[in-house]
């Protein structure tokens, strides 16, 4: 939009891949630093030469993993977010550049301290070596503390939306629970990673000592603190306006309802967030069982057991991060910028600089001027080369690329084709018009001119299998069109068409009279809270009810 869009299927997956690998190492970089210095102190106090030798060996593994893969994948996140969402990255940099600069000073100390700690094992007095260890840990943790502010800001920007203040953004409503959760993860991962290097120790007694120490002193605190801090985080997010209950598809505002949804599944809400939470909980439980298994097996744990534990921890942590990202949808910066780079049009920008800036990329601006004229990054074929219908579809494809490809692919991740297969352009167009409320899916509103929306509907209909010509004609209904049919197409067929997820025929329509259906159409949200109220006159409602009776009676099923 304001920046070129990298033509990459599901770019969010690239961010997820880089970010999950990075956080799994970077949290170890924090907790592992604490583990090193505390374990070194324990070994020296207890004059345990074997444990000291283990810590020294663990340091090398720690440095090789965190200084190279951890640090460079951190740069990788920088690269990735700049490529996938430059608009959001630019806003974050303008807001938090001094936060990042401050974090960089901690990063410099962290990198230097890690190297001095590594090379200092044989060259520094014990007290100095441990001092360097402490310097490493505190700088690494302070680095986490700063970055956590920016990450949690993206979900709950809090007072920043009105004040534009750095501190309001940094110390946002989910900041504190998030710091505690991440610190708990860092501590727990330190214990899990310790098992990874301990498994190679030849001495079973030392292996048992390290296992007990790693699990009871490091993993166990995480197992207690992390769930509590996550609950606090979710409650804080809910209080800050994140519709947690709706995202998880719970019908009632209670924890029981959320748990019920997690066990039995939900027809509404955000399916990816629900899937991620389930995966995280299952993996975390498995990791806990495996940790207990390591304890029970005393010194007899090897690569399969530790690798399984690492894998479960990776899935648990990665899925939890994924869920956190999905809680933010449809925004990339909560209530400020949608994931496709469109700004809501509120916030400090509006209040402090009203009139000073002509922001082309707000919902209102784009609805007034159109999304394609607003962007300089267009890929439209020459008009003369195409028929009008093909041109419409080509415009629609470009609108799709600009507005939708941040999340959707055609056939892959969050695929669009299954959603529009067989759907009429009329139904698609009507769905686009109420995208932001459609089945609680947490979508950004469609932004652009009505003709751009129709072009998008035509393109999506072609993706669904229709020819461009048929799709363009279908969007201009004939005068003799049955009003009930048109209303059904426009309002119902996306979900209740013949090939849709909930076909009308599956609700035993023959048992209902036109009057009953007419009455139900007047209270759709009470019938099912996934359904939006029908915006139609009494006469239109009556026409739709008659149409429903007719297609039920004819037994032909309903069109889609």
């Amino acid at each position, binding site marked *: 939009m304001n*920046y*070129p869009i990298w033509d990459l299927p599901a770019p969010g997956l690239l961010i997820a891949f880089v970010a999950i690998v990075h956080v799994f190492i970077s949290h170890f970089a924090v907790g592992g630093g604490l583990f090193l210095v505390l374990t070194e102190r324990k070994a020296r106090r207890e004059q345990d030469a074997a444990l000291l030798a283990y810590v020294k060996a663990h340091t090398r593994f720690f440095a090789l993993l965190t200084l190279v893969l951890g640090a460079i994948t951190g740069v990788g996140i920088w690269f990735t977010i700049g490529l996938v969402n430059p608009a959001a990255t630019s806003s974050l940099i303008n807001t938090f550049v001094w936060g990042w600069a401050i974090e960089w000073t901690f990063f410099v100390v962290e990198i230097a301290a890690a190297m001095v700690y590594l090379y200092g094992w*044989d060259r520094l007095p014990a007290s100095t070596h441990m001092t360097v260890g402490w310097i490493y840990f505190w700088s690494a943790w302070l680095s986490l503390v700063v970055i956590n502010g920016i990450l949690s800001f993206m979900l709950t920007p809090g007072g920043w939306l009105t004040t534009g203040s750095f501190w309001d953004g940094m110390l946002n409503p989910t900041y504190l629970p998030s710091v505690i959760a991440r610190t708990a993860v860092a501590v727990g991962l330190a214990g899990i990673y310790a098992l990874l290097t301990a498994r190679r120790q030849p001495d079973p007694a030392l292996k048992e000592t390290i296992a007990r120490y790693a699990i009871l002193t490091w993993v166990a605190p995480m197992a207690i603190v992390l769930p509590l801090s996550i609950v606090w985080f979710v409650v804080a997010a809910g209080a800050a306006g994140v519709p947690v209950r709706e995202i998880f598809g719970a019908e009632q505002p209670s924890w029981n309802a959320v748990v019920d949804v997690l066990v039995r599944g939900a027809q509404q809400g955000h399916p990816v967030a629900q899937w991620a939470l389930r995966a995280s909980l299952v993996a975390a439980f498995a990791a806990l069982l495996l940790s207990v298994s390591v304890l029970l097996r005393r010194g007899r744990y090897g690569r399969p057991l530790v690798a399984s534990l690492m894998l479960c921890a990776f899935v648990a942590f990665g899925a939890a991060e994924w869920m956190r990202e999905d809680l933010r949808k449809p925004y990339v910066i909560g209530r400020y910028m949608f994931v496709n780079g469109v700004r809501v049009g509120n916030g400090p920008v509006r209040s402090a600089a009203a009139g000073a800036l002509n922001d082309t990329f707000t919902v209102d601006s784009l609805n007034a001027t159109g999304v394609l004229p607003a962007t300089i990054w267009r890929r439209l074929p020459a008009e003369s080369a195409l028929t009008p219908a093909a041109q419409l579809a080509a415009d629609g494809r470009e609108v799709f690329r600009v507005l939708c490809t941040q999340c959707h692919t055609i056939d892959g991740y969050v695929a669009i084709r299954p959603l529009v297969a067989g759907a009429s352009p009329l139904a698609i167009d009507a769905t686009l018009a109420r995208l932001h409320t459609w089945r609680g899916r947490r979508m950004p509103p469609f932004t652009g001119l009505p003709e751009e929306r129709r072009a998008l509907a035509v393109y999506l209909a072609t993706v669904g299998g229709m020819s461009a010509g048929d799709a363009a004609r279908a969007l201009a209904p004939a005068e003799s069109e049955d009003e009930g049919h048109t209303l059904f197409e426009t309002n119902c067929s996306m979900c209740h068409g013949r090939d849709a997820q909930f076909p009308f025929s599956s609700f035993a329509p023959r048992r209902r009279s036109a009057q009953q259906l007419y009455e139900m159409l007047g209270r759709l949200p009470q019938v099912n809270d996934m359904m939006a109220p029908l915006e139609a006159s009494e006469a239109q409602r009556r026409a739709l009810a008659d149409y429903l009776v007719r297609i039920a009676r004819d037994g032909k099923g309903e069109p889609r």
Partner: protein
Amino acid sequence: MTPVLPQVDPVPWPAPPIVFWILLMITSTLHVIAMNAVLGGSIIAVVSRWAARSGNPHQARLAALIGKAMPVSIAAAVTFGVAALLFLQVLYGRAFFSSSVLMARYWMAVIPLVIAAYYAAYAIARRPERKGVALAIVCAVALVAVAFILSNNMGLMLRVEALPGLFARDARGVHLNVADRTMVPRYLHVLFGALGTAGVLVSVFALAFRKRDPAFASWMILCGAAWFAAATVLNFPVGLWWMGMLPTDTLEQLLGGNVTAAVLLAAGLVSILVTMALLAVASQAHEPAGWVAAAAAGLAVGLVTMLLTRDFVRDEALRNAGLTPPAWIVPQWDLMSLFAVLLVAAAATVTWMILRLRRPVSPL
């Protein structure tokens, strides 16, 4: 006129542009020094390892020394590079993000390439005396590739008027800056500059061996001077080639139209020539320390002035394309002060740690 640049972000800048510019120049200079040491050093290490196969013990020892220093040098290059990237994104993000997206596939390749070079460097540093060349080649090739990609992006971001057209042709992130006449000389200038800087650093490190092994120290100074001289002799015509490919207006500015730019360019050229002369003297001197130190200072002046000249060229290109700082600035002085204090504290802490590490070995 059709805009060629993305619009200004509506969130205000949190400091005056001059603050970001100064920080960009400082961090860029530190990054370029470390990057030159890494890139040039990796190539010298390959050549030295190769030459050592014919039995020259000095070459083998030099390769081992570079191998030991490489992980720390890469860490420094990355650490300073991250800061420079941050300030670059503030100042020139509208051009930089766009060019990065257009070459996204190559840009992302930087990450695995650096990881490969970094791990190769650690593997070499673990046993620096081993004779194999393969790991050194992996490290050098990865770094040469990284330099190529970065050089491409730094050039592509200046061609803002060409970016929408490139995007319309292909949006898959596959564009290198190959259509740009400055691309080849720019990249060669980077490579030869890195080799020259690494050569001077070899001469500087030689001073540490003056008492322990004077013969090796003399050889290192000569070797470093030779690398610098060879690279610089090649770099002068390459530099002229690059200048010749610049837009006429920019070239006229550099040749006297803009006094500051012309002085910077001249100072850079003179300081590089002086550095070469000082190294030549050092390589023949009985007491070379002062000459080598003076050469290093000359090179530092040359690097700074060349970076400022490059910044002038960049600023010209982007200003002509319409990239000017936003009017709305809300300085965060409290945070700037905190950053300054923490930066001093960080520098002091790092210095203290390094000094402690350099003390004589103590038993655990």
